[in-house]
C-alpha cells in the first residue's frame, strides 16, 4: 500500500491537442494519501473517469507521471499496478460460479490452494455472498453482481487502491443505501485507499473523508465535506454542492470592499487584490442569508415549502437569490431587506475565491 501522486498530469484523447478545449484533463497535480476514502465528484463529462483510468493504468496520460509510493508506474499495465476497479455496470464472468469469479484474480497471479480458498471465503462472508458461492454468477441480481466485482478486488492482498466508477448506477434505490454503507464499513475493515467516482453529491459526501471536485477537466477543490460546504473555493463547487446551491451575485470591488446593489457588503476576507479579474462575484449560501430590517432592498418573488424550512426567491434588479427561512419565522411579502452573513460571504474573481488561495 502506498500513497498515490499524480504529477503535472495532462491528458487528451486527440493525437495532437491544440486548444485548451482539446484537453480532457487539464494540468493537475494531486496526492492521494494511503488508506483514504476519496470521492471524485463532478458532472458528466468533467473528466472523472479519465482521471480514474489514468490511475488504474487503463489509460496512459499524455503528459505527467503517476507514482505509487516512490515507484513510477506511468507506463505500467493495470495488472501490475496492484489496483482494483469496480465499473458502472457489473462485470462478472457469466460462465463461472461466484466462487470461481472471486478466485479468478488470485489464480491469474499464481495464488491457489488453501490460502486462496480461505481468502475467497473470508471475502464472501464479508460481502454476504457465502450462500451464493456455488451458484452461476450470471443468475445473480445487479447488486449481487456488483458485489462480485468488488469482491474480485478485495480478495487480493496486494491491492494499493480500489476504484469505483459510479458503481451504484444500476442498483435499485432501496439497495443503494445498503451497498453504500457496506462500502464504508469495508473501508474501515480493509484499510486500503478507495476512490469513488460519482456525480451524486449525497453519495460523495456520505462515503468520503475527502472529496475531489472536478469541473471541465480541472480539479477545483479537494476537501472534507464541511470544507466544500462552508468554504467553496470555486463558484462551481458552491453551486454543485448544497441544495439549493450557493447564490452567486455580480459585484464590484471598491476601496477594499465588495459592492453589490450600491451597498458595501461585508465579506469574510477583505478583497484586496482582484488580479485584474474579468468577472467579480459575491458567493453566499442560502443558509447564510436572512431577512433584516435594513440592508439590501429586494422583492420577494416566490416561496416554496421544503419541510423544515422554506426556500424564498428574492430579486434585486436583475439579480435573484435564494434564502432559507426556518419554520415558524415570518416571511415578508413584497418589498423587504436582506442581510448576508459576513463570515460566510466571499468574493470570487473569475470563479475562484479571492484570498482563500486562488491558484489551483
Amino acid at each position, binding site marked *: 500500500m502506498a500513497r498515490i501522486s499524480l504529477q503535472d498530469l495532462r491528458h487528451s484523447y486527440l493525437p495532437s491537442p491544440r486548444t485548451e478545449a482539446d484537453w480532457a484533463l487539464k494540468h493537475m497535480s494531486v496526492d492521494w494519501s494511503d488508506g483514504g476514502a476519496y470521492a471524485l465528484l463532478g458532472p458528466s463529462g468533467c473528466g472523472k473517469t479519465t482521471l480514474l483510468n489514468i490511475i488504474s493504468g487503463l489509460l496512459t496520460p499524455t503528459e505527467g507521471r503517476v507514482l505509487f509510493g516512490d515507484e513510477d508506474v506511468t507506463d505500467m499495465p*493495470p495488472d501490475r499496478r496492484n489496483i482494483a476497479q469496480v465499473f458502472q455496470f457489473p462485470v462478472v*464472468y457469466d460462465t463461472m460460479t461466484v466462487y470461481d469469479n472471486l478466485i*479468478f484474480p488470485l489464480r*491469474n497471479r499464481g495464488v491457489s490452494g488453501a490460502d486462496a480458498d480461505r481468502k475467497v471465503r473470508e471475502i464472501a462472508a464479508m460481502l454476504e455472498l457465502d450462500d451464493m458461492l456455488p451458484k452461476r454468477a450470471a443468475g445473480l441480481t445487479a447488486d449481487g453482481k456488483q458485489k462480485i466485482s468488488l469482491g474480485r478486488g478485495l480478495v487480493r492482498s496486494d491491492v494499493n487502491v480500489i476504484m469505483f466508477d459510479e458503481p451504484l448506477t444500476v442498483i435499485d434505490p432501496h439497495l443503494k443505501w445498503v451497498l453504500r454503507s457496506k462500502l464504508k464499513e469495508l473501508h474501515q475493515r480493509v484499510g486500503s485507499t478507495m476512490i469513488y467516482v460519482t456525480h451524486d453529491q449525497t453519495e460523495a459526501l456520505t462515503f468520503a473523508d475527502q472529496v475531489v471536485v472536478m469541473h471541465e477537466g480541472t480539479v477545483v477543490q479537494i476537501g472534507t465535506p464541511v470544507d466544500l460546504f462552508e468554504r467553496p473555493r470555486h463558484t462551481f463547487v458552491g453551486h454543485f454542492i448544497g441544495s439549493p446551491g450557493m447564490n452567486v451575485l455580480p459585484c464590484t470591488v471598491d476601496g477594499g470592499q465588495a459592492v453589490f446593489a450600491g451597498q458595501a457588503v461585508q465579506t469574510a476576507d477583505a478583497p484586496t487584490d482582484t488580479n485584474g479579474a474579468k468577472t467579480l462575484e459575491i458567493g453566499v449560501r442560502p443558509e447564510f442569508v436572512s431577512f433584516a430590517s435594513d440592508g439590501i432592498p429586494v422583492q420577494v418573488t416566490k416561496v416554496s415549502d421544503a419541510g423544515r424550512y422554506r426556500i424564498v426567491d428574492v430579486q434585486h434588479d436583475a439579480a435573484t437569490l435564494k434564502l432559507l427561512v426556518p419554520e415558524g419565522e415570518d416571511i415578508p411579502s413584497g418589498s423587504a431587506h436582506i442581510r448576508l452573513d459576513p463570515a460566510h460571504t466571499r468574493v470570487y474573481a473569475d470563479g475562484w475565491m479571492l484570498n482563500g488561495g486562488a491558484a489551483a
Partner: protein
Amino acid sequence: MNGKTSNPKAWLFVLPVVALVAFNALIPLMTVVNYSVQETFGDNVFFWEGVKWFEQVLHSDRFHASLGRQMTFTAIILAIEVPLGIAIALAMPRRGVWVSVCLVLMALPLLIPWNVVGAMWNIFALPDIGLLGRMINGLGIDYNFTQQPIAAWFTTILMDVWHWTSLVVLLCYAGLRSIPDAYYQAAKIDGASGWAVFRHIQLPKMKRVLTIAILLRFMDSFMIYTEPFVLTGGGPGNTTTFLSIDLVKIALGQFDLGPAAAMSLIYFLIVLLLCWVFYTLMMRGEQQ
C-alpha cells in the same frame, strides 16, 4: 417474450406473409408428396405406388453415397469456417476507418451470384489458365481438379471457405462489438491471460451469434448446388455430387419424378431434423 399483449387480430397482420409463403411452400410440397407416392410413364397418367419410392431411395447406394459426401463436405467446411471466422473476427480492428474497409471487402463474396462464384473459381483454379492452378503446379504438386477427386474436393472446399467464411466473421464481429469495454478492462485488472479473456468473456458473448452462424452455414452448405455444379459439375465421376446436385440429376435429367420426390422429402426432413438437433444442443449448452 414477455410483456406481449394477447391480440387475436394480429392474425390479420401476418395474413399476407402466410398467404405468400403458403402459396410457395404448401402447393409445391403437395406436388412433391403427390409424386412421391405415384408412378408415371408420361401423359399425366399416374399409378399409386405407396411407399415404394421411399424404400427404394432409402436403400439405394447412390443416395447413401451422396448423403455421405454431403455430410463430409458440411462437416469439413464447418470445421474450417467456424474457427477461422472466429479468429479473424478477433483480430479485426475494433474501431476506426479500417473497420468499414474490412467489412465492405469481406462482405463482397457474399453478394456474388452463386454461379459466378463457381465460374470465377473455375477459371481461377484451372491448371493451365488459372492463377491458383498455376501456383499449385508451380510448387511441384500435380493438381488438376477436373481430373483428380482430391483436387476437386480441395477446390470445392477452398471455394466454400472463400465464399462463406465472411458470414461467420461478420456475425462474430457483431457479437464481439456488443461487449462493453469494461469487461476487457476488468479482465486486464484481474490479470487474465488472452486465452482466459477469450474463454470467459468473448466466447460466451459470441454464443448467440455463433449459434446463428453455425445454423446458417449448416443449412446452406447442406443445400449447396450451384457453386459446385458450375465448378466441377459434380465430378470427376460422382466424387463431388452432393445431395442437391444428385436430386436435380434425377428429377430434371432422368425425369424420374417418383424417386426424385421421395428423395426431396427425405432430404428436407434430414435438414429439418439436423437443424432441430443442432439448435436444441446449442440452447441446452447455453442453459447450463
